[in-house]
């Protein structure tokens, strides 16, 4: 620690160079932090809705093929299944196709029982929802986005389901209440959600009656979810609608994987950033040591050992990299809310920033070692005579 003032002074020996080097590195670490966070988010779909005790049952051959409603009773009878609910894909938008709405027809009793840890709904709104056949519960974020108020009638355009009564794709709902996410980290995931009655949906649609898109289950014991999953699938093996049951988390992960190897793309970019950083920082360190050779020789003359001189140069490199990493990664932490806007449905965690500091240390060692070795091997007489 006693060498810190010396390190600090040498670091700022050439102010312009240090500032530009730092700025450049800070920008690189900012990018590093953002990309690491996104990479981490894609590899770890959020908890809550996809908590460990939730399973999801889809058609084995295609998520677009429906399952019979009659499966409900059979799934409920499987030991270990605490609750089962059924949902269908409604494929809705509001006014224009870019205003996608995650509208889901749900069975009130079982759905809210299964997801009881996820929604905050006032008792009054819940009662109003139960009492209104055409009622909808809307995420308060979605309400704000479109300026909706409780009591509004909103038409949603389904790209799939025509109505029995007039063949129209436009369904009208009464907003009777709002909900918030119980776990604030879930808020972005629920931001586009609108829930309405499954009964209204099933009776109103012109085809597909008596089928459901998928089932969701809650199990008593998450450690038994693999066994419970295979028990559910065994029920329907060799039927014309075989099922595939998996933890909700795995389902989400598989979906993300379908987007492509995002991890590879991100790591390739990170590699390019790191590589350019190596040159930039390496050059600064080399220059810094080259200019200070007479000074280093003086240090050695007055009794600093080879090891200490080596340590001083590596220390300077570490200090430079860690300052840049701390500021850059700190900025990327502040940028999290902005990234969140663009990445709904995945959760961002600051733990993803830890590898950034690892990269900073690695960088410092790689770029610090060659000039440090040079400083250590310095011959005092030659160096003082300024024979480089």
């Amino acid at each position, binding site marked *: 620690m006693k060498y810190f003032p010396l390190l600090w002074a040498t670091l700022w020996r050439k102010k312009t160079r240090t500032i530009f080097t730092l700025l450049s590195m800070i920008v690189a670490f900012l990018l590093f932090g953002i990309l690491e966070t996104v990479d981490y988010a894609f590899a770890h779909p959020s908890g809550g809705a996809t908590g460990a005790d939730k399973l999801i049952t889809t058609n084995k051959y295609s*998520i677009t093929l429906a399952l019979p409603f009659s499966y409900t009773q059979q799934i409920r009878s499987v030991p270990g299944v605490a609750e089962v609910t059924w949902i269908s894909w409604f494929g809705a938008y509001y006014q224009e196709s870019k205003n996608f709405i995650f509208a889901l027809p749900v069975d009130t009793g079982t759905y809210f029982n299964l997801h009881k840890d996820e929604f905050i709904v006032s008792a009054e709104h819940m009662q109003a929802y139960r009492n209104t056949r055409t009622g909808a519960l809307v995420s308060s974020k979605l309400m704000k986005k479109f300026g909706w108020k409780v009591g509004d009638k909103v038409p949603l355009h389904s790209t799939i389901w025509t109505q029995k009564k007039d063949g129209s794709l436009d369904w009208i709902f009464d907003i009777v209440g709002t909900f918030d996410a119980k776990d604030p980290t879930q808020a972005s995931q629920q931001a586009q959600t609108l829930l309405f009655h499954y009964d209204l949906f099933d009776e109103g649609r012109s085809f597909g009656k008596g089928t459901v898109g998928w089932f969701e289950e809650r199990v008593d014991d998450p450690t038994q979810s693999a066994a419970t999953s295979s028990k559910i699938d065994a029920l329907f093996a060799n039927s014309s609608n075989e099922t595939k049951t998996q933890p909700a988390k795995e389902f989400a992960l598989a979906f993300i*994987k379908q987007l492509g190897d995002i991890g590879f793309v991100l790591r390739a970019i990170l590699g390019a950033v790191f590589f350019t950083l190596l040159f930039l920082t390496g050059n600064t360190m080399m220059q810094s040591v080259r200019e200070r050779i007479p000074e280093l020789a003086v240090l050695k003359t007055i009794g600093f050992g080879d090891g200490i001189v080596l340590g001083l140069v590596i220390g300077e490199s570490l200090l430079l990299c860690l300052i840049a990493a701390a500021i850059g990664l700190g900025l990327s932490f502040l940028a999290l809310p902005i990234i969140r806007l663009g990445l709904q449905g995945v959760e961002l965690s600051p733990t993803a920033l830890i590898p950034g500091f690892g990269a900073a240390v690695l960088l410092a060692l790689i770029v610090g070692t060659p000039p440090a070795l040079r400083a250590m091997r310095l011959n005092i007489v030659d160096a003082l005579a300024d024979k480089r």
Partner: protein
Amino acid sequence: MFKQLIAALSMGLQTLPQRLGASSVIVIGIAGVVAVLVSVLAMGAGFKHTLADSGRADRAIILRGGSDAELNSNLTRADVDTISNAPGLAKDSSGKALLSNELVTVVNVPKADTGTDANVTLRGVGLKLTEVRPELKIVDGRMFHPAVRELIAGAGAVKQFRGLTPGSVLHLRNADWIVTGVFISNGDVHESELLADVDTVGSSVERNGYSSAVALLTTAADFTRFKDALTTDPQLKVDVQREPEYYATQSKPLTKAINVVGTTVAIIMAIGAMFGALNSMYSAVAARGLEIATLRAIGFGALPVLLSVMIEALLLSLLGGVIGASLAWLFFNGHSVSTLGGAFAQVVFQLTVTKTLIVTGIIWACVIGLLGGFFPALRAARLPVAEALRAA
């Protein structure tokens, strides 16, 4: 003045080897920016290209009104009969309409690299398939036969997913389907798909009806006549689009997202590289202080000195830009990847490093170089001659 500029520039370039470390920072920093920019944008370009190639101006796609995408759409048999009588449709020698009634579903097929299930389009196609889509060619095996559970797989799908080579068996809903052949079709979106007889697919998924109809028109100019006839028919509620328009709409959201992400990342990297360039050029000017002061003392103007430093920065960044674009082209051009396309289904496409992208990358490089070179150049031009000479 021009002579002075040439002299100052050549002196600068001749001393470059002495400043190799600092100069390479500019080159490598900018090469990194351009490589990332061009590679990511090549993804967007490749995706767009694949979808854009899927259409022909003289082909129209008919969906149920308000459905947006084939997967959501639903046409009845009666709808398709009405459509096949519309004016403007091309006919075969026996007078039958060149219309393919299609049924689109997605099936789970494991990806070749990860082994996890991906949604692959299984498209039921009508008997007129090869006449409606003449670009489709079997390159391995044979065409499927109608009325039996046989399918052909697109060349892109065969590469990206497991178990689609000819002779493979795909188990779908209680039944085995045999892959009889592999097809290519101009590198378009259908090469990511599996094709089979529409009624066999329909009976397998228990669907009595179709998703869409694809019509070959007598000429591209007949589109309006064809569309008007269908949209004014009170029996029908359909959307009629030219194929290129339909696929352009499908590719828009993802292409836009890729471009936004790619540009954002590249802008951040460019800011970093600009600071790097500033650093290098400042140290170059400092190292050449005596030389520049001497030039000024013997009568060189400020402008030639300023320009010579900026041109040096520009040349270095140009080199970086060319290296970056070449790396992107070398590593990623033609690299085949797949992603979830517009409608829940996988689209296989190749990264395409186009000429426009290379030019874009090099322009970026030059802008970074100019920004990074300007202030150091200004300092060089304003160097107080007497002090600089004395300091040395």
